[in-house]
Protein backbone atom coordinates (compact mmCIF):
# COMPACT_ATOMS: atom_id res chain seq x y z
CA UNK A 1 0.00 0.00 0.00
CA UNK A 2 2.66 2.39 1.07
CA UNK A 3 4.77 1.27 -1.84
CA UNK A 4 2.03 1.87 -4.37
CA UNK A 5 1.31 5.30 -2.92
CA UNK A 6 5.03 6.07 -3.04
CA UNK A 7 5.07 4.99 -6.67
CA UNK A 8 2.06 7.11 -7.34
CA UNK A 9 3.71 10.12 -5.76
CA UNK A 10 6.82 9.60 -7.86
CA UNK A 11 4.81 9.20 -11.03
CA UNK A 12 2.90 12.34 -10.24
CA UNK A 13 6.09 14.27 -9.63
CA UNK A 14 7.43 13.05 -12.95
CA UNK A 15 4.31 14.12 -14.74
CA UNK A 16 4.44 17.53 -13.09
CA UNK A 17 8.06 17.92 -14.25
CA UNK A 18 7.16 16.90 -17.77
CA UNK A 19 4.31 19.38 -17.75
CA UNK A 20 6.64 22.12 -16.72
CA UNK A 21 9.12 21.28 -19.39
CA UNK A 22 6.45 20.77 -22.03
CA UNK A 23 6.23 24.42 -22.70
CA UNK A 24 9.87 24.77 -23.49
CA UNK A 25 10.84 21.48 -25.10
CA UNK A 26 11.11 21.25 -28.82
CA UNK A 27 11.51 18.09 -30.81
CA UNK A 28 13.95 18.12 -33.69
CA UNK A 29 15.21 15.34 -35.93
CA UNK A 30 18.75 16.63 -36.08
CA UNK A 31 20.37 18.54 -33.27
CA UNK A 32 21.17 22.17 -33.89
CA UNK A 33 24.70 23.48 -33.87
CA UNK A 34 25.22 26.31 -31.45
CA UNK A 35 27.78 29.07 -31.32
CA UNK A 36 26.76 30.89 -28.18
CA UNK A 37 29.58 33.40 -28.41
CA UNK A 38 27.94 34.79 -31.53
CA UNK A 39 24.36 34.03 -30.43
CA UNK A 40 24.18 31.78 -33.48
CA UNK A 41 22.25 28.59 -34.11
CA UNK A 42 22.36 26.46 -37.24
CA UNK A 43 19.54 24.05 -37.97
CA UNK A 44 20.54 21.32 -40.39
CA UNK A 45 17.06 19.85 -40.68
CA UNK A 46 15.75 19.95 -44.24
CA UNK A 47 12.71 22.22 -44.40
CA UNK A 48 10.28 19.68 -45.75
CA UNK A 49 7.16 21.37 -44.47
CA UNK A 50 7.91 24.57 -46.28
CA UNK A 51 8.05 23.40 -49.84
CA UNK A 52 5.07 24.07 -52.09
CA UNK A 53 3.67 26.60 -49.71
CA UNK A 54 3.02 30.19 -50.45
CA UNK A 55 1.35 33.19 -48.96
CA UNK A 56 0.03 33.12 -45.46
CA UNK A 57 0.70 29.44 -44.83
CA UNK A 58 4.37 29.95 -45.58
CA UNK A 59 4.69 32.86 -43.22
CA UNK A 60 3.09 30.93 -40.42
CA UNK A 61 5.26 27.93 -41.03
CA UNK A 62 8.34 30.10 -41.09
CA UNK A 63 7.31 31.73 -37.84
CA UNK A 64 6.71 28.34 -36.25
CA UNK A 65 10.11 27.09 -37.34
CA UNK A 66 11.73 30.27 -36.07
CA UNK A 67 9.96 29.97 -32.77
CA UNK A 68 11.18 26.41 -32.27
CA UNK A 69 14.74 27.24 -33.16
CA UNK A 70 14.75 30.32 -30.96
CA UNK A 71 13.36 28.32 -28.07
CA UNK A 72 16.24 25.88 -28.33
CA UNK A 73 18.78 28.68 -28.51
CA UNK A 74 17.27 30.41 -25.49
CA UNK A 75 17.30 27.14 -23.56
CA UNK A 76 21.00 26.88 -24.14
CA UNK A 77 21.62 30.50 -23.29
CA UNK A 78 19.74 30.17 -20.03
CA UNK A 79 22.01 27.32 -19.03
CA UNK A 80 25.11 29.51 -19.12
CA UNK A 81 26.64 30.62 -15.80
CA UNK A 82 25.13 33.89 -14.68
CA UNK A 83 26.23 36.64 -12.37
CA UNK A 84 24.68 39.75 -11.05
CA UNK A 85 26.08 43.02 -12.34
CA UNK A 86 24.40 46.18 -11.05
CA UNK A 87 20.95 44.73 -10.50
CA UNK A 88 20.85 42.95 -13.84
CA UNK A 89 21.28 39.26 -14.41
CA UNK A 90 24.08 38.75 -16.88
CA UNK A 91 25.17 35.53 -18.52
CA UNK A 92 28.79 34.89 -19.33
CA UNK A 93 29.15 34.08 -23.01
CA UNK A 94 31.81 31.67 -24.21
CA UNK A 95 34.28 32.57 -26.94
CA UNK A 96 32.76 32.70 -30.44
CA UNK A 97 33.60 29.49 -32.20
CA UNK A 98 32.80 30.47 -35.79
CA UNK A 99 36.04 31.60 -37.38
CA UNK A 100 35.58 34.73 -39.39
CA UNK A 101 38.21 36.36 -41.56
CA UNK A 102 40.08 39.33 -40.17
CA UNK A 103 39.37 42.83 -41.24
CA UNK A 104 42.94 44.07 -41.29
CA UNK A 105 46.18 42.13 -41.69
CA UNK A 106 48.11 40.93 -38.67
CA UNK A 107 50.11 43.67 -36.98
CA UNK A 108 53.80 43.58 -37.74
CA UNK A 109 56.14 42.80 -34.87
CA UNK A 110 57.76 45.78 -33.24
CA UNK A 111 61.33 46.61 -34.25
CA UNK A 112 63.90 45.79 -31.57
CA UNK A 113 65.18 48.51 -29.29
CA UNK A 114 68.84 49.48 -29.26
CA UNK A 115 69.58 47.31 -26.24
CA UNK A 116 67.71 44.33 -27.68
CA UNK A 117 69.71 44.59 -30.90
CA UNK A 118 72.95 44.70 -28.97
CA UNK A 119 71.93 41.79 -26.76
CA UNK A 120 70.99 39.71 -29.78
CA UNK A 121 74.30 40.48 -31.40
CA UNK A 122 76.33 39.56 -28.37
CA UNK A 123 74.17 36.64 -27.36
CA UNK A 124 73.32 38.10 -23.98
CA UNK A 125 70.35 36.38 -22.41
CA UNK A 126 68.27 37.85 -19.60
CA UNK A 127 69.28 36.51 -16.22
CA UNK A 128 66.52 35.58 -13.86
CA UNK A 129 66.74 37.75 -10.75
CA UNK A 130 64.90 37.45 -7.48
CA UNK A 131 62.33 40.18 -6.94
CA UNK A 132 63.19 40.66 -3.24
CA UNK A 133 66.61 41.50 -1.85
CA UNK A 134 67.78 41.46 1.76
CA UNK A 135 68.29 45.00 2.99
CA UNK A 136 70.92 45.11 5.73
CA UNK A 137 70.06 48.60 6.90
CA UNK A 138 66.40 47.96 7.56
CA UNK A 139 66.87 44.23 8.29
CA UNK A 140 64.03 43.11 6.03
CA UNK A 141 63.33 41.85 2.55
CA UNK A 142 62.73 44.67 0.16
CA UNK A 143 62.14 45.06 -3.54
CA UNK A 144 65.03 45.20 -5.92
CA UNK A 145 63.60 48.37 -7.52
CA UNK A 146 60.57 50.52 -7.02
CA UNK A 147 58.78 51.90 -3.96
CA UNK A 148 60.83 51.39 -0.77
CA UNK A 149 63.59 49.56 -2.52
CA UNK A 150 66.52 47.91 -0.83
CA UNK A 151 69.47 50.15 -1.69
CA UNK A 152 68.12 53.62 -2.24
CA UNK A 153 71.01 55.96 -1.87
CA UNK A 154 68.84 59.08 -1.93
CA UNK A 155 67.22 57.97 1.32
CA UNK A 156 70.41 57.82 3.39
CA UNK A 157 70.15 59.99 6.44
CA UNK A 158 73.91 60.23 6.82
CA UNK A 159 76.43 60.68 4.04
CA UNK A 160 80.15 60.88 4.70
CA UNK A 161 81.79 63.64 2.73
CA UNK A 162 84.24 61.92 0.36
CA UNK A 163 87.92 62.79 0.59
CA UNK A 164 88.45 65.18 -2.28
CA UNK A 165 85.09 66.92 -2.24
CA UNK A 166 84.29 70.52 -1.43
CA UNK A 167 83.15 70.68 2.24
CA UNK A 168 80.41 73.19 1.39
CA UNK A 169 78.84 71.01 -1.28
CA UNK A 170 75.46 69.53 -0.54
CA UNK A 171 75.93 65.76 -0.91
CA UNK A 172 72.25 65.01 -0.56
CA UNK A 173 71.37 67.41 -3.36
CA UNK A 174 74.15 65.92 -5.43
CA UNK A 175 72.65 62.47 -5.14
CA UNK A 176 69.17 63.72 -5.98
CA UNK A 177 70.54 65.53 -9.01
CA UNK A 178 72.31 62.41 -10.23
CA UNK A 179 69.07 60.46 -9.91
CA UNK A 180 67.15 63.07 -11.89
CA UNK A 181 69.74 62.93 -14.64
CA UNK A 182 69.51 59.15 -14.82
CA UNK A 183 65.72 59.29 -15.05
CA UNK A 184 65.87 61.91 -17.79
CA UNK A 185 68.40 59.89 -19.77
CA UNK A 186 66.22 56.77 -19.54
CA UNK A 187 63.18 58.68 -20.67
CA UNK A 188 65.07 60.12 -23.63
CA UNK A 189 66.24 56.69 -24.69
CA UNK A 190 62.73 55.28 -24.38
CA UNK A 191 61.30 58.03 -26.57
CA UNK A 192 64.05 57.59 -29.11
CA UNK A 193 63.29 53.88 -29.31
CA UNK A 194 59.66 54.68 -29.95
CA UNK A 195 60.54 57.26 -32.58
CA UNK A 196 62.79 54.76 -34.31
CA UNK A 197 60.01 52.18 -34.22
CA UNK A 198 57.52 54.54 -35.85
CA UNK A 199 60.18 55.91 -38.18
CA UNK A 200 59.47 59.43 -37.06
CA UNK A 201 62.19 61.90 -37.92
CA UNK A 202 61.93 64.86 -35.62
CA UNK A 203 63.89 67.93 -36.62
CA UNK A 204 66.60 68.51 -34.06
CA UNK A 205 68.20 71.79 -33.14
CA UNK A 206 71.03 72.55 -35.49
CA UNK A 207 70.75 69.09 -37.00
CA UNK A 208 72.89 67.49 -34.28
CA UNK A 209 72.05 64.76 -31.79
CA UNK A 210 73.03 65.17 -28.16
CA UNK A 211 74.50 61.69 -27.89
CA UNK A 212 76.17 61.61 -31.26
CA UNK A 213 74.38 58.62 -32.83
CA UNK A 214 73.67 60.11 -36.19
CA UNK A 215 73.29 58.75 -39.68
CA UNK A 216 75.32 59.88 -42.65
CA UNK A 217 72.46 61.72 -44.32
CA UNK A 218 71.66 63.61 -41.12
CA UNK A 219 75.27 64.71 -40.82
CA UNK A 220 75.26 65.84 -44.43
CA UNK A 221 72.14 67.87 -43.91
CA UNK A 222 73.49 69.39 -40.72
CA UNK A 223 76.63 70.41 -42.56
CA UNK A 224 74.65 72.04 -45.36
CA UNK A 225 72.50 73.97 -42.95
CA UNK A 226 75.57 75.12 -41.06
CA UNK A 227 77.19 76.31 -44.30
CA UNK A 228 74.25 78.47 -45.22
CA UNK A 229 73.87 79.96 -41.74
CA UNK A 230 76.34 82.79 -42.24
CA UNK A 231 75.75 86.49 -42.78
CA UNK A 232 76.30 86.19 -46.51
CA UNK A 233 74.21 83.03 -46.75
CA UNK A 234 77.12 80.74 -47.55
CA UNK A 235 78.50 82.60 -50.54
CA UNK A 236 82.06 82.97 -49.26
CA UNK A 237 82.44 79.66 -47.47
CA UNK A 238 85.47 77.66 -48.47
CA UNK A 239 85.10 74.15 -49.66
CA UNK A 240 87.27 71.16 -48.91
CA UNK A 241 89.60 70.17 -51.82
CA UNK A 242 87.47 67.32 -53.20
CA UNK A 243 84.08 68.54 -52.08
CA UNK A 244 81.52 69.09 -54.82
CA UNK A 245 79.45 72.25 -54.99
CA UNK A 246 76.03 71.87 -53.37
CA UNK A 247 73.19 70.94 -55.68
CA UNK A 248 70.95 73.74 -54.59
CA UNK A 249 67.37 73.50 -53.45
CA UNK A 250 66.02 72.88 -56.93
CA UNK A 251 65.06 74.94 -59.94
CA UNK A 252 62.09 77.18 -59.66
CA UNK A 253 59.77 77.44 -62.60
CA UNK A 254 61.17 79.45 -65.44
CA UNK A 255 58.76 81.58 -67.38
CA UNK A 256 59.34 83.09 -70.77
CA UNK A 257 59.14 86.89 -70.88
CA UNK A 258 55.77 88.27 -71.93
CA UNK A 259 56.99 90.00 -75.08
CA UNK A 260 59.57 87.68 -76.52
CA UNK A 261 60.09 85.80 -79.67
CA UNK A 262 56.76 85.85 -81.46
CA UNK A 263 57.71 83.35 -84.12
CA UNK A 264 58.82 80.80 -81.58
CA UNK A 265 55.66 81.28 -79.56
CA UNK A 266 53.47 80.82 -82.64
CA UNK A 267 55.35 77.68 -83.62
CA UNK A 268 55.01 76.28 -80.12
CA UNK A 269 51.29 76.88 -79.96
CA UNK A 270 50.61 75.40 -83.39
CA UNK A 271 52.60 72.33 -82.43
CA UNK A 272 50.51 72.00 -79.29
CA UNK A 273 47.25 72.19 -81.24
CA UNK A 274 48.52 69.64 -83.74
CA UNK A 275 49.40 67.22 -80.97
CA UNK A 276 46.03 67.69 -79.33
CA UNK A 277 44.16 67.07 -82.55
CA UNK A 278 46.07 64.04 -83.72
CA UNK A 279 44.29 60.74 -83.15
CA UNK A 280 47.42 58.75 -82.42
CA UNK A 281 48.99 59.47 -79.04
CA UNK A 282 52.42 61.02 -79.30
CA UNK A 283 55.20 59.46 -77.36
CA UNK A 284 58.02 61.27 -75.70
CA UNK A 285 60.88 58.85 -76.16
CA UNK A 286 63.04 60.09 -73.32
CA UNK A 287 60.21 60.10 -70.80
CA UNK A 288 59.13 56.64 -71.84
CA UNK A 289 62.62 55.21 -71.55
CA UNK A 290 63.19 56.87 -68.20
CA UNK A 291 59.92 55.48 -66.91
CA UNK A 292 60.79 52.01 -68.14
CA UNK A 293 64.22 52.12 -66.54
CA UNK A 294 62.81 53.34 -63.25
CA UNK A 295 60.23 50.57 -63.27
CA UNK A 296 62.89 47.96 -63.94
CA UNK A 297 65.06 49.30 -61.13
CA UNK A 298 62.11 49.18 -58.79
CA UNK A 299 61.30 45.60 -59.73
CA UNK A 300 64.89 44.52 -59.19
CA UNK A 301 65.01 46.15 -55.79
CA UNK A 302 61.75 44.48 -54.81
CA UNK A 303 63.03 41.12 -55.97
CA UNK A 304 66.21 41.57 -53.94
CA UNK A 305 64.16 42.43 -50.90
CA UNK A 306 62.05 39.34 -51.40
CA UNK A 307 65.14 37.13 -51.69
CA UNK A 308 66.53 38.63 -48.52
CA UNK A 309 63.33 38.01 -46.59
CA UNK A 310 63.28 34.33 -47.41
CA UNK A 311 60.79 31.82 -48.68
CA UNK A 312 58.06 32.09 -46.10
CA UNK A 313 57.35 35.69 -46.94
CA UNK A 314 57.67 35.22 -50.63
CA UNK A 315 54.18 33.98 -51.37
CA UNK A 316 52.51 36.74 -49.46
CA UNK A 317 54.68 39.31 -51.06
CA UNK A 318 53.53 38.08 -54.42
CA UNK A 319 49.94 38.26 -53.35
CA UNK A 320 50.34 41.79 -52.13
CA UNK A 321 52.08 42.91 -55.26
CA UNK A 322 49.80 41.03 -57.56
CA UNK A 323 46.47 42.24 -56.28
CA UNK A 324 46.50 45.93 -57.07
CA UNK A 325 47.22 45.09 -60.69
CA UNK A 326 43.76 43.56 -60.83
CA UNK A 327 41.15 43.74 -63.55
CA UNK A 328 41.76 47.36 -64.48
CA UNK A 329 45.30 46.58 -65.49
CA UNK A 330 46.57 49.93 -64.35
CA UNK A 331 50.29 49.43 -64.72
CA UNK A 332 52.44 52.45 -64.43
CA UNK A 333 55.32 51.74 -66.74
CA UNK A 334 52.93 49.96 -69.03
CA UNK A 335 53.34 49.45 -72.71
CA UNK A 336 53.23 52.71 -74.59
CA UNK A 337 50.73 53.52 -77.33
CA UNK A 338 49.89 50.99 -80.00
CA UNK A 339 51.61 52.47 -82.98
CA UNK A 340 54.92 53.48 -81.58
CA UNK A 341 55.61 50.39 -79.51
CA UNK A 342 58.45 48.97 -81.59
CA UNK A 343 60.09 52.30 -82.04
CA UNK A 344 60.01 52.99 -78.33
CA UNK A 345 61.63 49.70 -77.52
CA UNK A 346 64.55 50.10 -79.86
CA UNK A 347 65.01 53.75 -79.12
CA UNK A 348 64.92 52.92 -75.44
CA UNK A 349 67.85 50.57 -75.83
CA UNK A 350 69.73 53.13 -77.82
CA UNK A 351 68.99 55.81 -75.30
CA UNK A 352 70.30 53.67 -72.48
CA UNK A 353 73.60 53.00 -74.13
CA UNK A 354 74.48 56.28 -75.72
CA UNK A 355 73.00 59.69 -75.75
CA UNK A 356 71.87 61.67 -72.78
CA UNK A 357 69.21 63.65 -74.48
CA UNK A 358 68.92 66.19 -71.76
CA UNK A 359 66.15 64.16 -70.14
CA UNK A 360 65.90 64.20 -66.39
CA UNK A 361 67.85 61.03 -65.93
CA UNK A 362 68.80 60.44 -62.34
CA UNK A 363 72.29 59.09 -61.75
Amino acid at each position, binding site marked *: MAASSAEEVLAQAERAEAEKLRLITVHKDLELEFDLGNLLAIDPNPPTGLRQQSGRGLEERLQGLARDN*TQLLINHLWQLPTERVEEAVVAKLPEPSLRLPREKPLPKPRPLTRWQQFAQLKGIRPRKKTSLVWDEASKQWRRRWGYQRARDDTKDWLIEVPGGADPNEDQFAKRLQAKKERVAKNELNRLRNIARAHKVHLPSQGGMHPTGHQSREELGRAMQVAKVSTASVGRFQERLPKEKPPRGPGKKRQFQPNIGDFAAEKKGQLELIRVMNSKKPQMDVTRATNKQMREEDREEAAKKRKMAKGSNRKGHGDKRKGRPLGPGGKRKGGPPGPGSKRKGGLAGLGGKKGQRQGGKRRK
Partner: protein
Amino acid sequence: MLIKGGNANAIVTQVLRDVYALKKPYSVLYKKKNITRPFEDQTSLEFFSKKSDCSLFMFGSHNKKRPNNLIVGRMYDHHVLDMIELGIEKFVSLKDFKNSKCPEGTKPMLIFAGDAFDVSEDYRRLKNLLTDFFRGPTVPNIRLAGLEYVLHFTAVDGKIYFRTYKLLLKKSGCRTPRIELEEMGPSLDLIMRRTYLASDDLYKLSMKLPKALKPKKKKNLSHDTFGTTYGRIHMQKQDLSKLQTRKMKGLKKRPAEKLTDNQENKSKKIKRRKID
Protein backbone atom coordinates in the same frame (compact mmCIF):
# COMPACT_ATOMS: atom_id res chain seq x y z
CA MET B 1 28.82 50.71 -45.31
CA LEU B 2 25.63 50.96 -47.35
CA ILE B 3 25.94 52.33 -50.86
CA LYS B 4 23.41 53.01 -53.57
CA GLY B 5 24.20 52.26 -57.18
CA GLY B 6 23.58 54.54 -60.12
CA ASN B 7 20.11 53.24 -60.72
CA ALA B 8 18.82 52.22 -57.33
CA ASN B 9 15.04 52.18 -57.13
CA ALA B 10 12.72 52.77 -54.19
CA ILE B 11 12.71 49.17 -52.98
CA VAL B 12 16.47 48.86 -52.87
CA THR B 13 16.82 52.22 -51.17
CA GLN B 14 14.29 51.24 -48.56
CA VAL B 15 16.09 47.95 -47.94
CA LEU B 16 19.35 49.79 -47.38
CA ARG B 17 17.66 52.19 -45.01
CA ASP B 18 16.14 49.35 -43.02
CA VAL B 19 19.46 47.56 -42.68
CA TYR B 20 20.98 50.84 -41.59
CA ALA B 21 18.33 51.13 -38.91
CA LEU B 22 19.01 47.58 -37.74
CA LYS B 23 22.72 48.15 -37.46
CA LYS B 24 22.45 51.70 -36.25
CA PRO B 25 25.58 52.84 -34.52
CA TYR B 26 27.90 50.64 -36.54
CA SER B 27 26.87 51.49 -40.05
CA VAL B 28 27.08 54.38 -42.44
CA LEU B 29 24.56 55.03 -45.19
CA TYR B 30 25.72 57.02 -48.18
CA LYS B 31 23.03 59.30 -49.51
CA LYS B 32 24.33 59.91 -53.01
CA LYS B 33 24.19 57.45 -55.86
CA ASN B 34 27.45 56.02 -57.13
CA ILE B 35 27.71 54.84 -60.68
CA THR B 36 29.94 51.80 -60.35
CA ARG B 37 29.66 48.12 -60.99
CA PRO B 38 31.20 46.19 -58.14
CA PHE B 39 31.63 42.98 -60.07
CA GLU B 40 33.69 44.67 -62.76
CA ASP B 41 35.60 47.30 -60.91
CA GLN B 42 36.28 47.16 -57.21
CA THR B 43 38.48 50.23 -56.89
CA SER B 44 35.80 52.69 -55.90
CA LEU B 45 34.47 50.33 -53.24
CA GLU B 46 37.98 49.95 -51.87
CA PHE B 47 38.40 53.70 -51.84
CA PHE B 48 35.18 54.11 -49.87
CA SER B 49 36.23 51.44 -47.44
CA LYS B 50 39.55 53.18 -46.84
CA LYS B 51 37.83 56.51 -46.32
CA SER B 52 35.19 55.29 -43.92
CA ASP B 53 37.28 52.49 -42.39
CA CYS B 54 34.51 49.94 -42.95
CA SER B 55 35.08 46.43 -44.19
CA LEU B 56 31.53 45.20 -44.66
CA PHE B 57 29.40 46.70 -47.36
CA MET B 58 26.06 46.41 -49.10
CA PHE B 59 25.52 47.78 -52.58
CA GLY B 60 22.03 48.16 -54.01
CA SER B 61 21.16 48.61 -57.69
CA HIS B 62 18.40 47.89 -60.17
CA ASN B 63 18.38 47.22 -63.89
CA LYS B 64 16.35 45.23 -66.34
CA LYS B 65 18.60 42.21 -66.31
CA ARG B 66 19.00 42.14 -62.53
CA PRO B 67 16.03 43.77 -60.86
CA ASN B 68 16.29 44.72 -57.19
CA ASN B 69 19.86 43.70 -56.82
CA LEU B 70 21.70 43.67 -53.52
CA ILE B 71 25.38 42.87 -53.24
CA VAL B 72 26.65 41.93 -49.77
CA GLY B 73 30.38 41.83 -49.35
CA ARG B 74 33.35 42.10 -47.08
CA MET B 75 36.93 43.24 -47.38
CA TYR B 76 40.30 42.26 -46.06
CA ASP B 77 42.94 44.96 -45.77
CA HIS B 78 40.66 47.20 -47.85
CA HIS B 79 40.63 44.77 -50.76
CA VAL B 80 37.47 42.92 -51.67
CA LEU B 81 37.43 39.44 -50.16
CA ASP B 82 33.93 38.08 -50.89
CA MET B 83 30.91 39.47 -52.69
CA ILE B 84 27.56 37.75 -53.10
CA GLU B 85 24.78 39.16 -55.23
CA LEU B 86 21.24 38.59 -54.01
CA GLY B 87 18.02 39.42 -55.76
CA ILE B 88 15.12 40.73 -53.73
CA GLU B 89 11.84 39.10 -54.69
CA LYS B 90 9.57 40.32 -51.94
CA PHE B 91 10.21 42.98 -49.39
CA VAL B 92 8.19 44.22 -46.45
CA SER B 93 9.72 47.19 -44.76
CA LEU B 94 10.16 48.10 -41.10
CA LYS B 95 7.49 50.74 -41.24
CA ASP B 96 4.92 48.37 -42.72
CA PHE B 97 4.89 46.37 -39.51
CA LYS B 98 2.79 48.33 -37.11
CA ASN B 99 4.32 47.37 -33.81
CA SER B 100 7.03 48.50 -31.46
CA LYS B 101 10.65 48.03 -32.39
CA CYS B 102 13.59 47.19 -30.23
CA PRO B 103 16.21 49.74 -29.25
CA GLU B 104 19.10 50.15 -31.60
CA GLY B 105 22.49 48.73 -30.82
CA THR B 106 21.22 45.46 -29.36
CA LYS B 107 22.98 42.27 -30.34
CA PRO B 108 20.69 40.09 -32.44
CA MET B 109 20.40 36.33 -32.35
CA LEU B 110 21.05 34.62 -35.67
CA ILE B 111 19.50 31.38 -36.81
CA PHE B 112 20.15 29.62 -40.10
CA ALA B 113 17.72 26.85 -41.03
CA GLY B 114 17.86 24.49 -43.94
CA ASP B 115 20.32 21.89 -45.07
CA ALA B 116 21.37 23.98 -48.07
CA PHE B 117 23.53 26.08 -45.79
CA ASP B 118 25.83 23.15 -45.19
CA VAL B 119 25.74 21.45 -48.55
CA SER B 120 26.94 24.02 -51.04
CA GLU B 121 30.13 26.06 -50.77
CA ASP B 122 28.35 29.23 -51.92
CA TYR B 123 25.74 28.88 -49.23
CA ARG B 124 28.36 28.21 -46.60
CA ARG B 125 30.18 31.37 -47.53
CA LEU B 126 26.89 33.22 -47.54
CA LYS B 127 26.19 31.99 -44.03
CA ASN B 128 29.64 33.10 -42.92
CA LEU B 129 29.19 36.47 -44.59
CA LEU B 130 25.74 37.10 -43.14
CA THR B 131 26.93 36.16 -39.67
CA ASP B 132 29.82 38.56 -40.02
CA PHE B 133 27.52 41.26 -41.27
CA PHE B 134 24.71 41.04 -38.79
CA ARG B 135 26.32 39.98 -35.57
CA GLY B 136 27.03 42.91 -33.34
CA PRO B 137 30.18 43.57 -31.41
CA THR B 138 31.68 40.61 -29.54
CA VAL B 139 30.88 40.87 -25.86
CA PRO B 140 31.92 38.65 -22.97
CA ASN B 141 28.61 38.97 -21.07
CA ILE B 142 25.09 39.56 -22.15
CA ARG B 143 22.10 40.66 -20.16
CA LEU B 144 19.53 37.89 -20.41
CA ALA B 145 16.64 40.30 -20.47
CA GLY B 146 18.35 42.26 -23.21
CA LEU B 147 18.00 39.60 -25.89
CA GLU B 148 15.51 41.43 -28.03
CA TYR B 149 15.38 40.17 -31.55
CA VAL B 150 16.15 37.27 -33.82
CA LEU B 151 17.20 37.20 -37.46
CA HIS B 152 16.05 34.00 -39.04
CA PHE B 153 17.36 32.81 -42.41
CA THR B 154 15.71 29.82 -44.09
CA ALA B 155 17.00 28.25 -47.29
CA VAL B 156 14.24 26.49 -49.20
CA ASP B 157 14.06 25.63 -52.91
CA GLY B 158 16.86 27.95 -53.90
CA LYS B 159 15.29 30.87 -52.08
CA ILE B 160 16.42 32.41 -48.85
CA TYR B 161 13.80 33.81 -46.53
CA PHE B 162 15.06 36.46 -44.18
CA ARG B 163 12.70 37.32 -41.32
CA THR B 164 13.16 39.42 -38.22
CA TYR B 165 11.20 38.66 -35.10
CA LYS B 166 10.91 40.41 -31.78
CA LEU B 167 11.28 38.19 -28.75
CA LEU B 168 8.57 37.93 -26.11
CA LEU B 169 9.46 35.96 -23.03
CA LYS B 170 6.51 34.25 -21.50
CA LYS B 171 6.24 32.42 -18.22
CA SER B 172 6.83 28.75 -18.23
CA GLY B 173 6.93 26.31 -15.37
CA CYS B 174 10.68 26.55 -14.88
CA ARG B 175 13.46 29.10 -15.04
CA THR B 176 13.80 29.12 -18.81
CA PRO B 177 11.04 31.22 -20.34
CA ARG B 178 8.83 30.21 -23.22
CA ILE B 179 9.39 32.13 -26.39
CA GLU B 180 6.77 33.83 -28.45
CA LEU B 181 7.73 35.68 -31.59
CA GLU B 182 6.26 38.74 -33.18
CA GLU B 183 7.33 39.76 -36.62
CA MET B 184 8.86 43.16 -36.43
CA GLY B 185 11.51 43.95 -38.87
CA PRO B 186 12.23 43.89 -42.55
CA SER B 187 11.36 40.65 -44.25
CA LEU B 188 13.08 39.73 -47.51
CA ASP B 189 12.81 36.90 -49.97
CA LEU B 190 16.18 36.53 -51.65
CA ILE B 191 17.64 34.44 -54.42
CA MET B 192 21.33 34.04 -54.95
CA ARG B 193 22.71 35.39 -58.21
CA ARG B 194 26.40 35.85 -58.90
CA THR B 195 29.15 35.28 -56.39
CA TYR B 196 32.70 36.49 -56.19
CA LEU B 197 34.51 34.43 -53.61
CA ALA B 198 38.09 35.07 -52.61
CA SER B 199 40.82 32.76 -53.78
CA ASP B 200 41.84 30.10 -51.31
CA ASP B 201 45.16 31.57 -50.28
CA LEU B 202 43.78 35.04 -49.75
CA TYR B 203 41.06 33.55 -47.60
CA LYS B 204 43.63 31.58 -45.66
CA LEU B 205 45.69 34.71 -45.18
CA SER B 206 42.71 36.60 -43.85
CA MET B 207 41.91 33.80 -41.41
CA LYS B 208 45.39 33.74 -39.90
CA LEU B 209 45.34 33.94 -36.14
CA PRO B 210 48.11 35.70 -34.28
CA LYS B 211 50.24 33.35 -32.21
CA ALA B 212 48.88 34.63 -28.92
CA LEU B 213 45.31 33.64 -29.79
CA LYS B 214 46.07 30.14 -30.98
CA PRO B 215 44.80 27.62 -28.44
CA LYS B 216 47.68 26.13 -26.48
CA LYS B 217 48.12 22.43 -27.06
CA LYS B 218 48.27 20.33 -23.96
CA LYS B 219 51.10 17.88 -24.25
CA ASN B 220 50.99 14.22 -23.27
CA LEU B 221 47.20 14.00 -23.65
CA SER B 222 45.36 11.88 -26.16
CA HIS B 223 41.72 11.12 -26.71
CA ASP B 224 39.99 7.89 -27.57
CA THR B 225 37.12 7.61 -30.03
CA PHE B 226 34.94 6.71 -27.08
CA GLY B 227 35.82 9.90 -25.31
CA THR B 228 38.34 8.50 -22.85
CA THR B 229 41.28 10.78 -22.19
CA TYR B 230 44.68 9.16 -21.91
CA GLY B 231 47.59 10.83 -20.21
CA ARG B 232 51.24 9.99 -20.53
CA ILE B 233 53.59 10.10 -17.58
CA HIS B 234 57.34 9.96 -18.02
CA MET B 235 59.17 8.22 -15.16
CA GLN B 236 62.84 8.00 -14.37
CA LYS B 237 64.55 4.65 -14.71
CA GLN B 238 63.85 2.45 -11.69
CA ASP B 239 66.19 -0.12 -10.24
CA LEU B 240 63.81 -3.05 -10.18
CA SER B 241 65.97 -5.10 -7.86
CA LYS B 242 65.47 -2.50 -5.17
CA LEU B 243 61.69 -2.55 -5.47
CA GLN B 244 59.84 -2.73 -2.22
CA THR B 245 57.55 -5.71 -2.60
CA ARG B 246 55.56 -7.60 -0.02
CA LYS B 247 57.77 -9.91 1.93
CA MET B 248 56.38 -13.40 2.45
CA LYS B 249 58.33 -14.86 5.31
CA GLY B 250 57.64 -18.39 4.22
CA LEU B 251 59.25 -17.90 0.83
CA LYS B 252 62.46 -16.55 2.29
CA LYS B 253 65.51 -18.50 1.18
CA ARG B 254 67.38 -20.46 3.84
CA PRO B 255 71.18 -20.28 3.83
CA ALA B 256 71.59 -23.88 2.48
CA GLU B 257 69.36 -23.15 -0.50
CA LYS B 258 71.20 -19.92 -1.19
CA LEU B 259 74.48 -21.88 -1.51
CA THR B 260 73.04 -24.39 -4.01
CA ASP B 261 71.58 -21.51 -6.00
CA ASN B 262 74.98 -19.87 -6.28
CA GLN B 263 76.55 -23.08 -7.58
CA GLU B 264 73.82 -23.48 -10.18
CA ASN B 265 74.32 -19.93 -11.36
CA LYS B 266 78.03 -20.48 -11.77
CA SER B 267 77.53 -23.64 -13.82
CA LYS B 268 74.93 -21.84 -15.93
CA LYS B 269 77.41 -19.07 -16.69
CA ILE B 270 80.07 -21.57 -17.74
CA LYS B 271 77.54 -23.33 -19.97
CA ARG B 272 76.66 -20.09 -21.69
CA ARG B 273 80.21 -19.25 -22.50
CA LYS B 274 80.81 -22.66 -23.99
CA ILE B 275 77.86 -22.30 -26.31
CA ASP B 276 79.16 -18.92 -27.41
